[in-house]
């Protein structure tokens, strides 16, 4: 299932639509959570979970499985939507998001939910986990790959660059870090709050292979992931240009949708838009 063809592109488009709908539905139900950064990562997550990664929901602890670490842990809804769709737990469980006793914590908790590989949420730490996992894979000659998704605002954390330095130092070519470059953080535009640009040049200066793509074009995402497999001796950074809130016009490119959940009528409008898009594109 690793061909990039009409069939696989159709599948990814369909999964991305399902993921976006489930993000909206679960956040509408929970009444709190991070909508914008979940929506911006939906296409990336669809490609990772339904095209790229070697994972099996019936064997969540298989030693040779690929690992995904959500370093931008606040985008938990997009991870939960992908995991549910992949079969790690029933889709109905998404409705328990952020509720007392739920395995679907506000930020991912590996001890509460199968399929979650790392407990993240405090920004900057997930990429370090991913570096450690990739190191372990090298020690064991295990052959698995490690993926981590970072926010662009997250790159302001100094620890990220400690991890980036270490990944290149240890030549972790089994590691790919994807930056969800939606350009917004809580207090506004990333470039206004604390300018992290130039992102690609920074990773390149730290001896990473860098690929810049449109993070909403599955073909580009898949091609970048494919290319990163062939890069030897250094980790890959995929800088994915995205739109925060992508898929819902009234959320798109708005910082105020970073940590806000849609109200009932907003959720309905968002779902209508996503369905209209799917219909127009012939995704069913």
């Amino acid at each position, binding site marked *: 299932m690793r061909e990039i063809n009409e069939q696989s592109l159709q599948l990814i488009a369909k999964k991305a639509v399902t993921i976006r709908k489930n993000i909206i539905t679960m956040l509408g139900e929970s009444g709190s959570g991070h909508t914008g950064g979940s929506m911006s990562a939906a296409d990336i997550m669809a490609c990772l979970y339904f095209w790229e990664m070697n994972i099996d929901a019936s064997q969540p602890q298989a030693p040779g499985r690929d690992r995904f670490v959500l370093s931008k842990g606040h985008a938990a809804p997009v991870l939960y939507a992908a995991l549910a769709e992949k079969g790690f737990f029933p889709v109905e469980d998404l409705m328990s998001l952020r509720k007392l006793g739920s395995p679907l914590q506000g930020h991912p908790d590996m001890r509460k939910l199968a399929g979650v590989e790392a407990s993240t949420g405090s920004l900057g730490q997930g990429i370090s986990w*991913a570096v450690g*996992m990739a190191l*372990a894979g090298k020690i064991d000659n295990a052959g698995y790959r490690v993926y981590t998704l970072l926010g662009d605002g997250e790159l302001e954390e100094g620890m990220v660059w400690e991890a980036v330095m270490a990944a290149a130092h240890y030549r972790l070519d089994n590691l790919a870090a994807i930056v969800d470059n939606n350009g917004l953080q809580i207090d506004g535009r990333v470039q206004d709050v604390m300018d992290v640009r130039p992102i690609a040049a920074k990773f390149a200066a730290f001896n990473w292979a860098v690929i810049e793509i449109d993070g909403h074009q599955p073909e580009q995402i898949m091609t970048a992931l494919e290319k990163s497999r062939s890069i030897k001796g250094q980790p890959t950074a995929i800088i994915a240009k995205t739109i925060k809130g992508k898929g819902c016009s009234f959320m798109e490119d708005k910082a105020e949708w970073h940590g806000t959940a849609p109200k009932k009528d907003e959720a309905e409008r968002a779902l209508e838009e996503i369905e209209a898009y799917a219909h127009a594109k012939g995704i069913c």
Partner: protein
Amino acid sequence: MEKQATRDAYGEALVELGHLHEEVVVLDADLSSSTKTAGFAKTFPERFFNAGIAEQNMIGMSAGLAAAGKTVFASSFAMFAAGRAFEQVRNSLAYANLNVKVCATHAGLTVGEDGGSHQAVEDIALMRAVPNMCVVVPADGPSTKAALFQLYERQGPAYLRLGRPAVPKIYDNQMDMVIGKGIELRTGNDAAIIACGIMVEKSLQAARLLAEEGIQVTVVDMHTIKPIDAGMIIHLAKTTGALLTAEEHSILGGLGSAVAEITAAECPVLVERLGINDKFGQSGAPDQLLEHYGLTVQEIINKIHLLLKKKKAIK
């Protein structure tokens, strides 16, 4: 009396563990010659990773390695392991309950000449407050080795607090210990000294001198600060009615606080806490510093006298 630094015992024990267990990996942050992980690095270069001067990432990488099945020992100075990387220890290690042992050397005043910026006197308090963490402060070389082997067997995160200078051996090399069980080294009914780290040996000296003036005190090596041996503390509170804690750490939040928390709830008795009195350290030779901050045999004796006076007044 034979002497050995707890960090040296740690370095030796780590190599032994490396021979016994293939999944053991060790991380350091550019201090391997000081933390003594260098021996492991030399013996098992393929299982040793230097994080460079980047303690936050060292802890984060430890989490990833542990999540992938490794048993990780991560070392730096106490100031940086428990201090700078506190939130990584809290959120990446303890919150996820991972099998990573943070083995921090150069704790307390006995760092010496490097001064207050490098003397962690709050690390026990920080580590003790975090759920899932086990906190161990060995008194000498042999008990350090025993603690390390015990921590290997014990799943989950831990903080092992080690020192810089050579300290007298109070146990023989084959000593055994159980995490969470205090060791009663001397028994007396007038008062009990509950100590950890370098203060255990000083407490024994003080107890011998007190015996010469007819005062009999119990001395306990409370090597595990968490989970603390509540049963033993309650027993000592009931049998002596007067407890003295002694530690190379702030009197706020460390062993003294842990003991007082137990007695306050279960058996309220007099508790005196000997430690660093809410102050930063400074440069000086280790023994001069211990003298300056009152972590001495004489000060233990003075505190016992004070306790007995208070105890008498209550009666």
